């Protein structure tokens, strides 16, 4: 019962979204640049919840160097592993941050690095699994000094 109502609501939203996109194409395209980027990377802009953990500071004083850790819950065997992890910064001039094409040789699906954030924004990590499923997680980072130079 619940499931049915969710599906119909989504269909409704998609329908109205499509109409809005038709009416206001340039604005929509700009507002959803990161969704377009995610679509290109993993073929969906609505990944399933769970499995992916993205650890970042809540407040980043310096947007030039913001540490992040991504861990995906996976046994990393030949039959069941993470194929790729993509990190997107929704509010940066270019939303893509990095993609990591992983293999079972890693043993665990985890990486740590540092990124630039231009302003306070949502950061998204999405994981493509070997069975084709896509999981994602979003976290908000407050940025005191932006990291895009002047």
């Amino acid at each position, binding site marked *: 019962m619940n499931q049915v109502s969710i599906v119909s609501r989504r269909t409704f939203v998609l329908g109205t979204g499509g109409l809005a996109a038709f009416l206001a194409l340039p604005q929509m395209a700009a507002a959803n640049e990161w969704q377009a980027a995610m679509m290109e990377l993993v073929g969906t802009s609505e990944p399933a919840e769970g499995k992916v953990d993205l650890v970042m500071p809540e407040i980043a004083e310096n947007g*030039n*160097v*913001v540490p992040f850790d991504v861990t995906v819950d996976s046994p*990393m065997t030949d039959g069941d592993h993470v194929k790729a992890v993509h990190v997107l*910064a929704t509010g*940066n*001039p*270019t939303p*893509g*941050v*990095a*993609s*990591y*094409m*992983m*293999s*079972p*040789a*890693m*043993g*665990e699906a*985890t*990486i*740590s*690095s*540092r*990124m*630039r*954030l231009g302003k306070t924004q949502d950061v998204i990590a999405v994981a493509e699994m070997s069975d084709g499923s896509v999981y994602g997680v979003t976290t908000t980072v407050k940025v005191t000094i932006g*990291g*895009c*130079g*002047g």
Partner: protein
Amino acid sequence: MAAKPRVKAPKKAAAGEIVTIKTLVRHNMETGQRKDSDGNKIPRDIIHTFVCTVNGKEALRSKWESAVSANPYLAFPLKIMETSEVVFSWTDDQGETVSTTKTITVA
């Protein structure tokens, strides 16, 4: 980016052990967004690809955009099954590649 990259990896591991590798390479990672004092855009020059191979087989390939911080740091695990020659290489927009090799011995 002539500077030598720094890689921290253990010299020895037990068969099947998951070890942590830490890498750091010096690079400005010029975003292409900044302007010089005359108002001209400074062209983008970033490391766009990082590859780690274990005994010739690719373990991790990473594609970076300009949002990766200057002097890129990357840490990741490797499951060491046998004595392994691990090669790390970084390639930037100038087409320059720097590499370094570490050997992890399984006794």
